[in-house]
């Protein structure tokens, strides 16, 4: 029993963390078969090498050209298969935009913190001005008070999402390039100052997932982490209503 457990443990170490996104199983399957397809020729080549090293009496003649071409053709087929299967997933994830009903959340990276902004009941993000950024005064993203759309914007340091609904993230950075990486959602996209970038995905499994920074961004790079909470739609509504009430209270003062 302990042996079986340690075997399981080893397999878990050697593999990706549990997946919670709709497109995750496709990524995992592709990753697995790609690794298998690459390990086989690596092993065969090394058997070949060891065989050649042990073969003391040299064989006369040249290695048949037909086999060389055959091998090359086999590899070309493999590379084509790899390129095409992975491209289908890439196209689904990145060429096509999110559905119109996807939930909008803004992700903002800054040294060394992630912020997540929800547009509130009006479904429109308020204007942002870098000059107004003042975390101590409760405005870490520089939301412009003159724009009424910003009045109901909710800023959170945890990304909370309902399970089963597609989300459209718009990513920005205030200062340097960061890397927005959720291993459990098989998702990575740099946030680049000066650019607003979009990615979309659908979380499906309720749970907590680490969010990491994957692009070196300064001395706090390794500490620039946050949590993604995927909750049931009912829990999400409760959380959102709670935050909206709190925000309205702030505005009312």
């Amino acid at each position, binding site marked *: 029993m302990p042996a079986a457990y340690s075997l399981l443990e080893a397999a878990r170490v050697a593999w990706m963390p549990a997946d919670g996104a709709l497109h995750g199983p496709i990524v995992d399957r592709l990753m697995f078969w790609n690794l298998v397809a690459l390990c086989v020729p690596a092993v065969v080549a*090394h058997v070949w090498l060891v065989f050649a*090293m042990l073969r003391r009496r040299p064989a006369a003649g040249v290695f048949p050209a037909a086999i060389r071409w055959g091998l090359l053709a086999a590899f070309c087929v493999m590379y084509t298969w790899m390129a095409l299967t992975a*491209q289908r997933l890439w196209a689904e994830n990145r060429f096509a935009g999110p559905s119109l009903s996807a939930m909008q959340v803004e992700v903002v990276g800054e040294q060394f913190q992630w912020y997540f902004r929800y547009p509130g009941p009006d479904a429109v993000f308020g204007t942002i001005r870098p000059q107004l950024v003042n975390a101590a005064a409760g405005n870490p993203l520089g939301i412009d008070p003159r724009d009424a759309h910003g009045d109901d914007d909710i800023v959170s340091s945890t990304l909370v999402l309902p399970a089963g609904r597609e989300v459209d993230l718009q990513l920005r950075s205030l200062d340097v390039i960061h890397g927005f990486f959720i291993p459990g959602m*098989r998702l990575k996209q740099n946030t680049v100052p000066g650019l607003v970038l979009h990615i979309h995905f659908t979380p499906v499994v309720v749970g907590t997932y680490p969010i990491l920074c994957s692009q070196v961004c300064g001395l706090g790079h390794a500490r620039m982490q946050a949590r993604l909470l995927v909750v049931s739609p009912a829990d999400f509504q409760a959380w959102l209503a709670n935050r909206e009430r709190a925000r309205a209270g702030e505005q009312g003062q």
Partner: protein
Amino acid sequence: MKRIFARIFTTNHRTLGIFYLYLALAAVAVGTMLSLLMRFHRVWPDAVIPFFGIMKPEDYLALVTMHGTLMIFFVLTTAPQSGFANLVLPEQIGARGMAFPRINAAAFWLTVVAFLVLISAAHISSGGAPISGWTNYPPLSALPGAGPGQGLGMDLWLVSIGIFCIAAWLSAVNMLATILGERRAGMTWTRLPMTVWAWLVASILTLLAFAVLLAAVVLLFSDRHFGSSFFIPMGDMIDGRVVGHGDGSPLLWLHLFWFFGHPEVYIAVLPGMGLATSLFANFTRRRVAGYRMMAGMLVAIGLLGLAVWGHHMFVSGMNPYAGTAFAMITMAIAVPSTVEVIGWLATLWGGGLRLQAPMLFALGFLSFFIVGGLTGPLLAEPALDAYLHNTFFVVAHFHLIMAMAGVFSVFAGIYYWFPLMTGRLMNETLGKLHFWVSLITAYGTFLPMHFAGLAGEPRHYDRLAGPVTSFPSLIPVERAITYSALLLAAAQFIFLWNVFASARRGRIAEANPWQATTLEWADAEGPMRIERGPYEYELPSSGKGFHPQWESATKEE
């Protein structure tokens, strides 16, 4: 005094080749030390390191930056290309010397200056060395306020790499002119040793790639000091202050940098491919299977290598359609690389290998080239790279394909050409010991990193445990990597001992000790006209003997 001066500032290409190897040795020694500090810190993050104290996060990032810069520029660019080509290139093509010996010597001394400036970045700047990695993405690298080391340290990095670009450029101009213009009569394209093909392609890549890097470095320096905004976007904030007033694009740097950075990989590894081809022919006593094909594929790799830089940028914010285009070209470059590997395996298939140290290291090069290369197509798939990008999987990939393959090809070259440098042979037993320990510990160091990457562990993290992540399951893996890396480094003392002991007391090498066919082993001037191909080997069992290029073809009958 004047004589010492003349000996130091020599234009003798062989001496310069040895100088380059010494410079690479100094850089690899420092670079390895830095990597061991990193490995140590990852496993024992709270330990007090002698002469260093407790390592702060910025110290770790400074180590990463310096390690990468030293290894890529001052080891993998200098030794296989400038080092070995200076050592034997003119002889291999039957030239009287280099085309521009003074430019060649100037290139070496500029490289030394660049090295000293880089080392000084860690010492004379108050913030220490830069912390933005060897790729130095702006705005982190463009704004002194973005972190310690991003002030004077970053400036010195830019100056050092700027000088290095000019040096690499001068060296490549000389190399190219020598190969194109100084070949002896009869040294036709199909009679060139494969190393010369590799240096030819690598020189062209150097001219194109380093020119662009120099431009990028100048632009970044200008952003830092002359108020320009090539890479800093409007409204960019650092440290609570808005500093971006122009409308620059950080992505522009990524394009410029990787336009250099990817060909750079081939500059590092092509000479090793050429050398491996030569050594496989020599130590199997066989002709190269498909010489024209193998040479053509080196050129193809060079050409395609100029058009794949975007595969470093799949998740950078580049247009996803561009990602697809770069993915396809990158997948295409796997084809000529596969042709090379199949050619080598076909040459080796018949067995009867002479398993001496140079051959063993060439085989080690091939092993790393296969294992490290095969993860290339996987990383060329944007959908999978979107998970693996900037994880330890990538660290494993490029350390096998570029660092270990490159370094093993350098070892192969040193064991092989040692008689030309010293007149003596290196000790075989120590060489074999060095090979097997290095091979096993190199795999022990870099293979497990694939798993760390699959587990989602990012690069540039100074410790495993963050505020949210802990990767507890990776702790034993990380320990194993560190122990293996320590052994790998320790094994290099066998090599150092072998080099310096053999240089003084090694067995005196007879003429042409490896029974090679290429011209650097000719003990006399050789014929006025070259009439033979580079690899006219025959199996000893055939009783025909082999034909060096310095033999005239008519003597055969």
